[in-house]
């Protein structure tokens, strides 16, 4: 069963039961536990849910995802499992409510098998900043899976679950999807609810799915998305029927190719793979239009000012009192807060809180934070103007493929540059997806990013789906003997 659709069909036609499918994944979870893709697993509850799912299927009451075992990134609050956000701060945090997207997927019958590993508070591009340890990339277990949704991408790539959820603040769904040879979409800001998703940078954070194909993403996104009164930034509009919109021809589709996506810093194998993918689109009738995005050099600096500023504000809630880790070494309120935060936050989180505090502090606010917000508007305008001339903007998801574990650059700025092509979609609130487009040296997956206008998910998913009808990169799986 190579796709979610075929899995759903097999369940409905009773070729396999949900209990069998759940046991199949539990066996794989145990066999490949060394990948460290999971922080928490709940097999007992999952098997109970699977029994209920089989009954529903038997009674012809199945919904869109009934009986499908999945995982949630450990940033989404769940009632049956703790929500750690990859941090010592929340290592024992049990949420009293569930994230809306968790409820939406459960409502459609998906079964939660566990919670996936991630960079602490979603800050990182390698999953090496997790309190629960690094995750191995299933394509090469000596390499990182990307981040911050590294556990979700690795779990999907190694077929430990049918699909997984992720969150994307600057590329945290798309970059690990690219590194692990799977597909992932960051929807338009406001399409999927942020309620119950631990906040990192609230004006940039979006939830989305990670799966094997664009068709899978369409099925999942339809179940995840939708208006939520509990999220004040949720957009109140009808969710399109994404799976049924995967049928338009690519003839006449205008694809923009920004020259900045093909600079010398981008690995040559990655460039070659993307050019090959462009040829596939051209052969299917798409029109290629070259373009310049002159503000691209400002994307990453603008992103890091805003993301760190919002993070320093959001993470001020961790005071050792209301919830989370509490230090035992304190004799005053100030000491308690300071000791709790100092003992429980990891290095990268501290760096970003300090950077954010600096850019928001008196005397620096206008020069850094306000200036970044003005440039954010310019970046959004440039992207929207270009998206009036083309339907999608195409390029590599990342400048290079997965790098070895433990090889993160000592200079934090160097590791931030891994996000160079992904952060723009978050700054501008645009939808963007990453799909597999080849391999470097025959074994390391290469990701291709498609970015579109606000609420153009159906068009992006269709373009990706048509590409996957003509190629088979998304069908490739890691060598099980080397896992």
């Amino acid at each position, binding site marked *: 069963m190579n796709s979610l659709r075929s899995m759903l069909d097999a369940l409905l036609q009773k070729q396999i039961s949900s209990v069998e499918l759940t046991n199949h994944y539990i066996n794989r979870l145990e066999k490949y536990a060394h990948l460290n893709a999971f922080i928490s697993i709940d097999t007992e509850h999952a098997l109970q849910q699977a029994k209920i799912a089989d009954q529903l299927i038997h009674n012809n009451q199945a919904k869109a995802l009934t009986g499908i075992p999945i995982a949630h990134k450990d940033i989404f609050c769940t009632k049956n499992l703790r929500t750690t956000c990859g941090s010592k701060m929340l290592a024992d945090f049990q949420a009293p409510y569930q994230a809306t997207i968790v409820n939406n997927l459960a409502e459609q019958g998906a079964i939660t098998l566990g919670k996936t590993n991630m960079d602490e508070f979603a800050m990182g591009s390698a999953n090496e900043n997790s309190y629960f340890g690094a995750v191995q990339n299933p394509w090469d277990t000596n390499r990182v899976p990307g981040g911050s949704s590294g556990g979700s991408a690795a779990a999907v790539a190694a077929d430990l679950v049918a699909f997984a959820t992720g969150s994307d603040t600057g590329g945290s769904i798309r970059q690990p999807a690219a590194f692990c040879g799977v597909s992932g979409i960051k929807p338009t800001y*406001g399409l999927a609810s942020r309620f119950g998703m631990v906040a990192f940078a609230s004006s940039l954070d979006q939830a989305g799915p990670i799966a094997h194909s664009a068709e899978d993403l369409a099925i999942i996104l339809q179940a995840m998305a939708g208006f939520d009164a509990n999220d004040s930034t949720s957009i109140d509009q009808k969710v399109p029927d994404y799976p049924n919109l995967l049928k338009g021809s690519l003839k006449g589709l205008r694809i923009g190719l920004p020259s900045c996506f093909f600079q010398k810093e981008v690995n040559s194998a990655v460039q070659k793979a993307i050019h090959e993918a462009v040829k596939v689109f051209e052969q299917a009738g798409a029109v290629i239009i070259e373009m310049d995005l002159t503000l691209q050099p400002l994307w990453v600096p603008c992103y890091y000012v805003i993301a760190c500023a919002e993070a320093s504000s959001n993470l001020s809630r961790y005071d050792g009192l209301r919830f989370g880790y509490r230090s035992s070494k304190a004799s005053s309120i100030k000491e308690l807060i300071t000791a709790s935060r100092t003992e429980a936050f990891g290095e990268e989180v501290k760096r970003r809180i*300090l*950077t954010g505090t600096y850019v928001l502090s008196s005397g620096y606010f206008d020069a850094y934070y306000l200036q970044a917000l003005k*440039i954010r508007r310019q970046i959004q305008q440039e992207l929207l103007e270009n998206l009036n001339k083309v339907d999608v903007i195409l390029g590599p998801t990342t400048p290079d493929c997965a790098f070895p574990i433990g090889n993160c650059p000592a200079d*934090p700025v160097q590791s931030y540059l891994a996000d160079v092509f992904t952060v723009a979609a978050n700054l501008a609130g645009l939808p963007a997806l990453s799909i597999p487009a080849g391999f470097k040296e025959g074994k390391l997956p290469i990701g291709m990013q498609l970015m579109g206008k606000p609420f153009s998910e159906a068009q992006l998913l269709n373009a990706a789906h048509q590409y996957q009808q003509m190629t088979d990169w998304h069908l490739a799986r890691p060598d099980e003997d080397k896992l």
Partner: protein
Amino acid sequence: MTLSVSDLQHIAQLAYLESTPDKMTKLADEVSSIIDFVQQLQQTDTTNVAPLFHPMDLHQRLRPDVVTEEDCLAELAELTGFVDERLYIVPKVIEE
């Protein structure tokens, strides 16, 4: 280096974080490197450009001022070991 160790100490105090002096030097170095990197934003002309706080330029949605949540103290109390007679217990850290 943009940030001196004493600058960083001030920022750390504002952020309720602390560090040993040896680690402070390394941290000041790293945060300086980030600040130096983002400094390039200041060369861009943004005259007459309004800041974009939010990608969709949304306005705050309002709802009627009525109670929507029932008393869920019992459920919350079960999740924490720090409740006594409907009161949430915090450590005694308030100076006399």
